[in-house]
């Protein structure tokens, strides 16, 4: 990663000026000049984000038909629609950095696109829907809210809208979680079992504890906060809410230190994360990609009908 963080004397004058601009909180528009490393890292980051919105809709989509009431069904369907919409908004931003949206989508469907670890897992029960809606979306809110101060202005503007919609998803998730937590022993056990399974993936979600000065995404102004800062913020917000209703977490060393105001926790196995996102696709991912491939093939004609012949652009 060191090559992605150049030292000051390696920079030409124009790049040095650009770096000073973003380090001073300056923003960058799609039409502005930008160093190739900045464009490439931003594209990779934003494309992965867009892919994650699309792939993140699929585990929940599997539960629309199995939701326990009509209200839950509509609420979940609306949320899935929001997430796919976020994906489209964010692909538009990624596209402004030079890669066609059709290519990103083709890469994703073919299994070449990267996306967040949490969307590689299967969903076993309605308790998983509570965990995705409340805990995983909560983690996404923490990282996305930080992105409302990213240096790439088109991304920042889209993130403001996405975060506003995510707060609704948070409510949707909390509602499901509290219903299960106040339910029968079986319902509570279903929730507790799902929380136990999601604990490690959510710790993984934020990434390794990388120092500010060693993180290329921070150097290039893509994300303003370190992985650990985001993980700690998530823990501060969500763990007390779980403990409050009697949900335990599968880490006996988990503890908040009031002196340092830091959560202590057992380090998750990072190799497990690397294997998941870089190795062969998980069974859940392989199934979902096969489904996406079929949808892409079967629904291509809709795209052709909707887009039609491009309308002539009138010269100004």
């Amino acid at each position: 990663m060191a090559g992605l963080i150049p030292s000051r004397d390696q920079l030409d004058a124009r790049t040095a000026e650009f770096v000073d601009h973003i380090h001073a909180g300056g923003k960058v528009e799609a039409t502005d000049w930008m160093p190739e490393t900045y464009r490439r890292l931003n594209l990779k980051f934003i494309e992965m984000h867009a892919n994650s919105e699309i792939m993140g809709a699929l585990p929940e989509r599997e539960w629309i038909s199995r939701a326990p009431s009509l209200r839950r069904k509509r609420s979940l369907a609306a949320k899935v629609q929001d997430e796919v919409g976020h994906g489209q908004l964010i692909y538009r931003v990624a596209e402004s950095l030079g890669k066609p949206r059709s290519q990103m989508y083709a890469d994703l469907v073919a299994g070449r696109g990267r996306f967040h670890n949490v969307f590689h897992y299967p969903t076993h029960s309605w308790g998983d829907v509570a965990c995705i809606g409340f805990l995983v979306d909560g983690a996404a809110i923490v990282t996305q809210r930080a992105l409302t101060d990213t240096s790439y202005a088109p991304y920042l503007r889209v993130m403001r809208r996405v975060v506003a919609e995510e707060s609704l998803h948070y409510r949707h998730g909390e509602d499901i979680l509290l219903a299960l937590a106040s339910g029968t022993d079986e319902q509570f056990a279903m929730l507790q079992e799902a929380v136990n399974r999601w604990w490690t993936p959510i710790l993984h979600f934020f990434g390794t504890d990388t120092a500010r000065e060693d993180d290329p995404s921070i150097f290039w102004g893509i994300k303003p906060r370190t992985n650990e800062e985001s993980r700690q913020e998530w823990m501060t917000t969500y763990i007390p809410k779980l403990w409050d209703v009697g949900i335990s977490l599968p880490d006996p060393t988990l503890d908040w230190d009031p002196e340092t105001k830091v959560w202590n926790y057992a380090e998750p196995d990072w190799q497990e994360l690397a294997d998941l996102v870089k190795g062969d696709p998980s069974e859940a991912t392989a199934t979902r990609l096969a489904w996406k491939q079929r949808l892409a093939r079967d629904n291509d004609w809709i795209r052709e009908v909707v887009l039609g012949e491009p309308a002539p652009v009138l010269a100004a």
Partner: protein
Amino acid sequence: MDHDGPDHDDTGVRDPSVRNPSPAAVPDTALPIETMWEVFGRRRINDALEHVGQIHAGDRDTALLLARETHFRHEEAVDYAVVRSDQLHRLEDPSLLERRVDIDYRLQRGYSGFRDKRARAREAAARRGADDLQTRPAPGRDVASEAS
């Protein structure tokens, strides 16, 4: 200004309070629609473009110049754009935006009563004998209300 009459005053600036005049209502003396431009500005870099008004100009460069002089003389924007008015297509039937069925599940107000719901979950936890769990009052926050 008489809204039933010509929608231009003698300065040639269109009254923005006149919504969507039909072409037939525009008198012969009006400047042609091809020379009308919609102006959008961004107050701060983080904001989306918002409609601020209209101007008349014969070409793009003049439109950009007049938009600046008409709408952005007092630091109202850090960025702006113009679009020819005949390139803007309006919703023809506003009733399409009206609510026909209950869509509360798409709105914040569809999710309420959390204090009571949380209290019920706490009571359930107590019934299960969960009082041996850690209940350290670490700082918690309400994410949803912060984000909105």
